[in-house]
């Protein structure tokens, strides 16, 4: 508990101290739990353009993008080491997006999984290796 409260009492404001690997999340649907995923699709791809009105609205109400910031935090923690809680946090949000109809499922798909890749720059070379693949979960278990 103290570990959680101390950063509030003595915060660190080291915003962007370094630009580390940046997570990208893709999801895939599977017919069987042990199938190999082939058709990965980006989870919540970025819009090409945001209108002024939408930008203004986002200043007051921006739940989905703030949730994405949290998902990215979970993904960054998974870069550092495995955490069941972080894996499930991301999965629950993907399941919730499926349940809400935000993502359409493939016909016959019974399972969903996701992978995290790390977009990074080393010198002038930008690479994006896959760092984590989540255990598939049944679609009917969607939260």
């Amino acid at each position, binding site marked *: 508990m103290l570990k959680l409260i101390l950063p509030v*009492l003595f*915060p660190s404001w080291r915003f*962007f101290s370094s630009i580390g690997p940046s997570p990208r999340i893709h999801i895939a649907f599977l017919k069987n739990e042990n199938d190999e995923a082939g058709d990965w699709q980006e989870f919540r791809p970025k819009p*090409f353009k945001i209108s002024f009105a939408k930008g203004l609205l*986002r*200043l*007051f*109400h921006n739940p989905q993008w703030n949730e994405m*910031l949290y998902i990215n935090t979970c993904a960054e923690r998974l870069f550092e080491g495995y955490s069941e809680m972080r894996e499930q946090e991301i999965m629950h949000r993907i399941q919730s997006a499926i349940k809400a109809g935000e993502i359409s499922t493939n016909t016959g798909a019974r399972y969903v999984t996701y992978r995290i890749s790390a*977009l990074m720059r080393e010198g002038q070379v930008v690479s994006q290796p896959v760092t984590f693949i989540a255990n598939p979960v049944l679609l009917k278990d969607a939260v």
Partner: protein
Amino acid sequence: MELETAVRFSEIALAFALILQGLEYCRGLQSEKVLGFIFLFLSVLLLVGFQPVFVEAGLLVVSIISLRRFQGPYNGGSDCMSALVLLCLLLSHIVPTKFWQEIALGYLAFQLCFSYFQSGYIKIINADWRSGQALHDVFAITAYPISENIRRLAHSSRLMLIMTWLVILFELAFPLSLLNQTTLIIALIVAACFHLANACLFGLNRFFWIWLSAYPILLWFQARLLAN
């Protein structure tokens, strides 16, 4: 600005920021909806000035529960600042003397100034920031929910360099604005515009509202310093 006035202005701004956060939680998973409704209820009470001590204590407890729920902040530094503003305002109500009241609020003013200075300092000691490369990476690589057409700004290395140095110099110079009331007001307007730009470009809307909520305390602090 009088201390009591600054505290009340800060509470109103904080309540507004927390209402917005509560509404966002209400759109999340089930457990977050509960958190959101409690935030909303208590924040409305804070907005109207009902029993601020109990309401701020309640909000602080909910903030700590939220830290536990998410195993850390949900929204990075904005959650830390929310809890810090809440804590310092609460302390200003419950400490026995004016001296300790000023210490509690002075600490908040210090952290607000330091948030800008430290951000600038960690950038200026980093070669990637000094060259503009880091800001390029922020636009081009980071997972911030930036629209694709905004990401294109990363292609202009001169723009990145100019923006980087404007931000670094402003952040480092921020504490100097305390020397004069006019310079502080100008600095706070510029800082608010900076947070607004971050909200529009990177979707960091919570930072905008919560940093704004601490500004009245800094205005009081500066008046208090000059009075000495």
